[in-house]
C-alpha cells in the first residue's frame, strides 16, 4: 500500500467543542484548558504543539476518556462506518478497543515478555491465547521486533521498548491513535527512525492520529495539520494545514519547505507566549 493512499475510512472524526478543564491546585484553581474547539477529520494526522505543561496532555486524556471535562463536548464518531466492514482485517473490533494511547514512557509490564506485553489489550478483551499471540507476532514484525518476542522489557533499549508500546497500541487496530510525547525521552537518531515508522504505520493503517509534542520540527515533519497551543490555560493560537508533500522521507528534514513550516510554527508559539 502506497504512502499516498491511506484508507481514510478506517479513522474516526474527533469533534471538540468548548472544552474546559480546571484542576484543583495548592493555590486554588489551575485552569488547564480554556475553551478548546477543534474538528479533526477522519484519518488525519494532527500534531498538538505547545510548551511543556500547557495542557495538551490533558486534552489528549480527555479525548481518550481517561478524564472528564468541566464543560464542553467531545465526540468521537466513525464517520464512514459502513456497517463495520471498514474494520475488516483486524482481530478484535469493539467500541472499547478502538482507541489506543501511547504514553510518554513505553509503560510496559516488566514481568511480562515482549510478546505478552504486546498481546495485553487483546488478553483484557478476552481473546484466546493462540489468537492473541498470533496477532502480537504480526504487530511485532510490523515494528521490526520479531526476534525480541521472548525478551523482557528490561532487556531492551529505550527505542525498542517504545516500539513494543507502539505494537501494543496497534494490536486492537485502533481507529484513533493518541500519542503523548511518545519519543521525547529518546536520542535524536532513534527518535527520527520512530517518527518515520509512525508515518508509515499511519499511511498503511489509516487511523486518525493525534500526536502531542513540544518539538516544533517533529510536529512539522510528522503531521498534516498542526495545532499550536498557548501555555496554561491552553488556547489555540494557530491551526494550520502544513504545506508539505504527503510522501515524506528523511530527506525532507533538510528542505526549505520544512524550514518554512517550522518557522511559522515557531512564530505562533512565541506569539502564544511560550
Amino acid at each position, binding site marked *: 500500500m502506497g504512502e499516498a493512499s491511506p484508507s481514510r475510512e478506517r479513522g474516526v472524526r474527533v469533534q471538540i467543542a468548548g472544552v474546559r478543564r480546571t484542576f484543583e491546585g495548592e493555590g486554588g484553581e489551575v485552569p488547564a484548558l480554556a475553551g478548546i474547539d477543534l474538528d479533526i477529520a477522519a484519518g488525519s494526522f494532527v500534531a498538538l504543539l505547545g510548551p511543556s505543561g500547557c495542557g495538551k496532555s490533558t486534552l489528549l*486524556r480527555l479525548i481518550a*476518556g481517561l478524564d472528564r471535562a468541566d464543560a464542553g463536548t467531545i465526540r468521537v464518531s466513525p464517520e464512514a462506518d459502513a456497517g463495520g466492514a471498514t474494520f475488516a482485517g483486524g482481530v478484535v473490533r469493539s467500541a*472499547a478497543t478502538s482507541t489506543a494511547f501511547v504514553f510518554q514512557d513505553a*509503560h510496559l*509490564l516488566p514481568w511480562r515478555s515482549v510478546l505478552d506485553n504486546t498481546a495485553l*489489550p487483546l488478553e*483484557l478483551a478476552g481473546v484466546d491465547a493462540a489468537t492473541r499471540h498470533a496477532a502480537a507476532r504480526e504487530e511485532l514484525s510490523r515494528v521490526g521486533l520479531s526476534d525480541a518476542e521472548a525478551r523482557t522489557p*528490561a*532487556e531492551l533499549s529505550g527505542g525498542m521498548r517504545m516500539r513494543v508500546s507502539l505494537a501494543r497500541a496497534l494490536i*486492537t487496530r485502533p481507529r484513533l491513535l493518541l500519542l503523548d510525547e511518545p519519543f521525547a525521552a529518546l536520542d535524536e537518531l532513534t527518535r527520527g527512525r520512530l517518527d518515520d515508522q509512525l508515518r508509515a504505520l499511519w499511511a498503511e493503517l489509516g487511523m486518525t492520529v493525534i500526536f502531542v509534542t513540544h518539538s516544533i520540527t517533529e510536529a512539522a515533519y510528522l503531521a498534516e495539520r498542526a495545532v499550536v497551543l498557548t501555555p496554561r490555560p491552553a488556547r489555540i493560537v494557530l491551526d494550520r494545514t502544513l504545506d508539505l508533500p504527503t510522501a515524506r522521507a528523511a530527506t525532507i528534514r533538510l528542505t526549505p519547505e520544512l524550514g518554512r513550516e517550522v518557522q511559522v510554527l515557531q512564530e505562533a508559539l512565541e506569539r502564544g507566549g511560550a
Partner: protein
Amino acid sequence: MVASTRVPSSRTSQRHLVGVAAPPLVALVALLAGWELMTRALGVPAFLLPPPSAIARAGVTDAAGLAMATLITAEAAVAGFALSTLLGVLAAVLLATSRPLERALYPYAVLLQTVPIVAIAPLLVLWFGPGGRAVTVSAFIVSVFPVIANTLAGIRSVEPSLRDLFRLYGAGRLATLVKLELPAALPSIVTGLRVAAGLAVIGAIVGEFVAGFSEGAAGLGILVLSAYRQLRTDLLFAAVLCAAALGLTLFGAVSLTGRRLLRRWHPSARG
C-alpha cells in the same frame, strides 16, 4: 544498547560465595575459641556460661529432643507465616480498594504490630486452648503487619499510567488486580514476607512461653523454659541456636523463592 542481565557464571558465583562466607566464619571461629578459653581459664560456672564444647555436647546428647522441639516450633511458625501471607495480602487488597476503608481500618492493623504479644498470649490460650493452635495464632499476629503494610504500599505505588492503560482497555477490577496490581506489588510483598518469616519464628516461641503447654508436644519455647528451670544452660543455648537456625532457614527460603519469582524483571533480584 541491550541492558545486560546475565547471570554470573558458576565459577564466579562460587568465588563470590567464598568471599561472602569466609569473613563471618573466621570471626565465628575466633569468637568460639576465645569463649572456650575464657570460661576455662576463669573457671566460670557452667550454669552461668557454659563453654561452646559443652553446648555442642548438649546438642549431640539431646539431639532427638532438640530436633523434635524444632519441628514443633517450625510447624507453628510456618503455619502462622502462611496465615500472615494469605490474610495479610488479602487484607491489603481490601484496604487498597478504597481510601476511606483504609483510613478506617489501617490504624487497627498498626495496633496489631504494637500490641505486646506476651500480654495477649494468655487470651489466646483462653480462646484457642493451650498448644499448637494458640502458638500458630501468636506467630500470625506478630508477623502479619509487615505483609499488610508492604503489600498495600506496593499496590498504591502502581504507575498511574499503567492504571490508565488497563482502564482504556476496559479491564475489570479483578483483571486489574491479578494482571497489574499484584504482579507490580510483588517486590514489596516479597520484602514484607522476608520480614514476616523471621517474626513468625519469634512469635511462635513467645507464644510457646505462655501457651505452648500441651502434652507431648513441646516446642523450642518450652524447651528453653525447662532448661532454664533445671539450670541446664548448655541445653538452653543449644535450643536458642536451633531457634536461630529455624529463623534463618525460613528467611532464606522466602528470600530464595522471592529471588526466583523476580529474577527476570526486577533489579532487586539481580547481580
